[in-house]
């Protein structure tokens, strides 16, 4: 627990709460002290009533009692309000820090890590750490002071009986300490069972075609049935473990109360113990029972928080793979040199790109074509430094891209990536993604939407440019998404435009319209087109054909047709395809 609180990340994130925490600590202490006064006052009052002390004295005592109750409640309010609120602030700060860190991590990390794992770092784990810092500390400190205070007071009043009462309570505490991890484990096991149950349902529902094709519905139901019944068995044993815990605590506490009643009562009868003291003693004893349980629970909370913190730290220790270069604020105009570029993916032996040499003067266009897996997309990712090229192999304006500030480099490039990804936001926000400050520029929006052939579709939507898309909005077709992604790239006036196979989900006719605009768009900026359909690359200044990471053919469209290689063959086949489509 101590090393959890000493952890630098925890301390640093908690730092802004320190002042508030001091007050919260005072409130917790106050609550402990005032609460400790209550059994004493009740005892005194009962004693006064018993001694027939008269209404006035009783009234005075009751008023004092009422004041202390009020003070207790007052402190309780402040401790919760300050401390738990602090823990929520702490949680938000920690989570924002994790998110900020995520945005600096490279593509490699996101390829490696599973989205679900990242999610649980930022949600469940952060929450577990908060539980430690918030309710964990609060309950531990507050119940701790109360327990210690109560024990001291009880010892002073009747030490033999105190020791007798404490023994079983200590046993309860140890019992809880031992049982908590077991319970936690068994609840994890149940979670896992639920996980496999839902995996099974997931599989069965996704495979419903096969299930139906073989008329195997009953078999699937049987499979689910068995898993569901295993799950039930596991949850049952967890529920019973929990039940045992509660029942044991309750009964132990009950039996000890009887023992206290009996022994204390004998002492009262023998006049060795005052009735008022007995009542107070009994009150203190009752005060102890639940804190014993709560401390066991709290310690388990810290253990969980520690584990979660470890996972959070692992994520924070993840270094951004792609780092800023030293040269800032360089004016980049889109002239590229690719020199003997060789690249292989992490862990893969065979190079994806094997010695490319390409020059692209500013404002010119380059097309990269070739069969699937030839390295086209890798090349594009290297240009924007989504992957890191070897030193000296990719230069813009004669400067190694590794020496450029990332924001300068990426600011000089606007790209339509292969996998279309739109945010669950309005179409306006998606298109103006690069320049949110211009999101209200209707004219610019309409222009790029027109160029991407998506204006008509947008205007047909209920809310036009303000239509929400994605999870909470309307579902777009693959082609619509792709065209919005094109519009998004065009909205950004960067000197280099990269189109990574971005017309795959668009039908031929729309493609043609987009291509018509393309010539206009390409004017005045460097354009790099990766394409499957060769019709999109006809007008490019240079076309290179990649095969197995090397350039197998290069030249203009006419030159390549004359050569009669892969390019000419593929072009011919695509012509027939178009013909067929029209038939």
């Amino acid at each position, binding site marked *: 627990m101590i090393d959890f609180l000493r952890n630098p990340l925890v301390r640093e994130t908690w730092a802004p709460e320190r002042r508030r925490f001091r007050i919260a600590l005072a409130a917790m202490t106050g609550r402990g002290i005032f609460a400790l006064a*209550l059994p004493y006052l009740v005892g005194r009052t009962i004693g006064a*009533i018993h001694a027939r002390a008269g*209404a006035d004295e*009783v009234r005075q005592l009751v008023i004092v*009692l*009422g004041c202390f*109750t009020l003070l207790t*409640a007052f402190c309780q*309010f402040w401790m919760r309000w300050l401390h*738990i*609120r602090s823990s*929520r*602030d702490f949680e938000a700060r920690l989570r*924002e820090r994790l*998110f900020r860190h*995520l*945005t600096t991590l490279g593509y490699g990390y996101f390829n490696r890590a599973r*989205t679900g794992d990242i*999610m649980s770092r930022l*949600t469940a784990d952060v929450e577990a750490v908060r539980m430690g810092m918030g309710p964990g500390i609060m309950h531990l400190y507050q119940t701790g002071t109360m327990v210690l205070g109560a024990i001291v007071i009880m010892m002073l009043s009747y030490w033999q009986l105190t020791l007798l009462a404490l023994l079983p309570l200590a046993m309860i505490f140890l019992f809880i300490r031992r049982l908590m991890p077991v319970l936690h484990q068994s609840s994890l096991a149940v979670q896992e069972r*639920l996980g496999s149950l*839902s995996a099974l*349902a997931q*599989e069965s*529902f*996704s*495979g*419903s*075609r096969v299930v*139906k*094709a*073989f008329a*195997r519905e009953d078999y699937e139901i049987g499979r689910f*049935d068995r898993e*569901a019944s295993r799950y*039930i068995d596991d949850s049952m044993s967890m*529920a*019973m473990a929990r039940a045992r815990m*509660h029942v044991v605590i*309750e*009964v132990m506490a009950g039996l000890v109360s*009887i023992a206290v*009643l*009996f022994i204390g*009562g004998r002492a009262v*009868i*023998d*006049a060795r113990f005052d009735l008022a003291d007995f009542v107070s003693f009994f009150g203190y004893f009752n005060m102890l029972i639940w804190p014993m349980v709560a401390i066991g629970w709290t310690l388990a909370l810290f253990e969980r928080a520690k584990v979660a913190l470890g996972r959070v730290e692992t994520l924070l220790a993840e270094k951004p793979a792609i780092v800023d270069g030293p040269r800032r604020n360089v004016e980049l105009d889109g002239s590229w040199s690719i020199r003997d570029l060789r690249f292989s993916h992490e862990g893969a032996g065979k190079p994806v790109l094997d010695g490319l040499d390409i020059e692209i003067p500013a404002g010119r266009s380059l097309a990269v074509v070739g069969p699937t897996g030839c390295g086209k997309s890798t090349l594009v990712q290297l240009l924007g430094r989504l992957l890191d090229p070897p030193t000296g192999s990719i230069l813009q304006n004669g400067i190694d891209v590794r020496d450029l500030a990332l924001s300068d480099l*990426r*600011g000089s490039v*606007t790209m339509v*990536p292969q996998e279309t*990804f739109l945010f669950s936001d309005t179409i306006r926000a998606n298109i103006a993604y*690069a320049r949110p400050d211009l999101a209200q520029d209707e004219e610019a929006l309409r222009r790029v939407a027109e160029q991407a052939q998506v204006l008509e579709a947008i205007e047909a939507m209920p809310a036009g440019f303000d239509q*929400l898309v994605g999870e*909470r*909005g309307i579902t777009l077709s693959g082609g619509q998404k792709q065209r919005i992604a094109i519009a998004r790239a065009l909205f950004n006036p960067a000197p280099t435009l990269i189109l990574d196979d971005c017309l795959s989900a668009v039908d031929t006719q729309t493609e043609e319209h987009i291509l018509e605009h393309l010539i206009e768009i390409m004017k005045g900026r460097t354009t790099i087109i990766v394409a499957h359909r060769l019709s999109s690359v006809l007008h490019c200044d240079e076309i290179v054909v990649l095969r197995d990471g090397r350039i197998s053919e290069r030249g203009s469209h006419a030159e390549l047709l004359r050569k009669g290689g892969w390019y000419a063959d593929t072009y011919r086949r695509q012509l*027939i395809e178009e013909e*067929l489509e029209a*038939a």
Partner: protein
Amino acid sequence: MSPKSVHDDEISGRIFDWALYRRFLPFARPQLGAIMASVVLLLLLAVTTMTAPLVIRWAIDNCFEGTRPGPEGDNLLADFNRFLGDFSGLAAEVEIDAADRGQALGMVSLLAVALGVLTFVFRYLQLFIANRTGQRIIYDLRRHVFAHVETRSLRFFDTNPVGRLVTRVTSDIEALAELFTSGVDVVFYDLVMLGLTLGILFGINAELALYSLALVPFVGAWSFFFKREAQELFREVRSRVTRQNSFINESVTGMRVIQLFRNEARANDRFRLWSRELRDSHVKTVRNFSLFYPGIEFFSGLGAAVVLLVGNGLLQEGSLSIGDMFAFWILLAKFFEPLRQISEKYNVLQSAMASGERIVTILDNDLRIPDAGNPAPLPSRDELGRIEFDDVRFSYDGEQEVLKGISFKVAPGETIAIVGATGAGKSSIINVLGRFYDISGGSVKLGGVDIRELPKYELRRSVGIVLQEVFLFADTIRENIRLGDESFDDERIREAAARVYALPFIEKLEKGLDHPVEERGATFSLGEKQLLAFARTLAHDPPVLVLDEATANIDTETEHLIQRALERLMENRTVIVIAHRLSTIKRADRIIVMHHGEIRETGTHAQLLAADGIYRRLYELQYKNQEGSEGKSKDRKERTA
């Protein structure tokens, strides 16, 4: 976020929706005995729990004080006091000295221990029965919902995302389960406890009871106010959590776009906004509870003060004893507890009801392919191969027709190849023939009987379908081949696998037929998956085979195996194949060329090539380059055939 889009996870349940209760009642009915037992145990538990303060009350008055006899009367409480007096032997004594009182205290302590043990037994039994009952009900319910979903038609699966369906059979059932495991019976117990406490308080002293209960309306109002607030906040927190988490999820998936467009700072700003708003909702909740709990504690403290103050007056009058006061003190604490419990249960019950509503929505869905009411007998194996499509019209969405009047006939034992460009309607033929979807016009007949009149499952067992994308279950190889049909012994499975050349690679696996297949068969190559699918179909030995050939690239060696396996698979069957391989097409007795949902050409390979129509173009596009690699051996085969 759009306020208009209603998400089904935002349904807020109504606690008193009797129609909903009635829907789930049948699942509780088989457990009626257990439920009754649980109720009886709860009643017993309430009684034993309530006896403890009464024993203490008696002990204080009679043993500590020696003020015996307590107030006489003829109610149950007085009877109980008399019983305690007799039991401890105190009642018989005339002169009561300290020793007698000590002994009597011992006796009632023993009685209290016995009561404690009894409580222990009742409590444990009750928890056991309640948990088991609850779990059984959930189990039945879960199974029922799963079976319901499983038997819906493909149209249902087309319109309901798998994720949502999975939620219904997992977390929604879990939430509903709360109703049975910790909802209804706990509320019942709390109500009984409330009633009993009230009865005893009034039994001891009506005046004091009235005074101390004067606080109840305040507590009630206080709880009501905060609970209502808490409920609102709970909803707000939940929707903000969802928003924040989907933002994280989206950002992680789209991080590349964020970084490409240099939007890291803005994503961070946006995240901070969502994170802060969520925190604000949390903070409001914290404030709510920070006020609520101390308030409740203050009220119970106030209750105790009232008892002491008013009790003192009554005590001086002699109508109340110290023991009575003690009992009041303990019981009042017990009185506030269930009050708090009940209101805390409110949220649980509410989300249970919301889940219940969502489950009912699924249960009410009757999208399924109706089985023939009075099914025609299944034609003989040979007859089944006589397939007739007569002016078949079909559409997935009811708007765009994908089959626009398809008519063709297949004779038993014939092999028909269907070719066409993407979107020509080829796979819809499979969907229609296996009755995964019902057609909107015309008829499909097997052996002269309309498939809608044949028993559905028998029909599907007669029509073996091999799809392009092979779906493997996360189970053993054996189960993936026999698909749960226990009548298949290993010999039959091996034989089927051997015939389609799948056995060699199966036997290379560490555990052979017992080898566990990973989710979706991730560890197998495409070719191996194809062979497994062939083995699966061959083992089931359907008279009609419908095959959608895989287009994906498979290494040459496996490709060769697959072609030979296909030949074996097609032997002695009527085959409709959506062909992508030239060899398969050439082997077909007839080729049907589909284009834009219509049959445009029919004939043999040679005839169609000569006709110089769509087929010829398709051939040039897709099949011609296969001539070189496979042509020779296949031509030889054709000549010999």
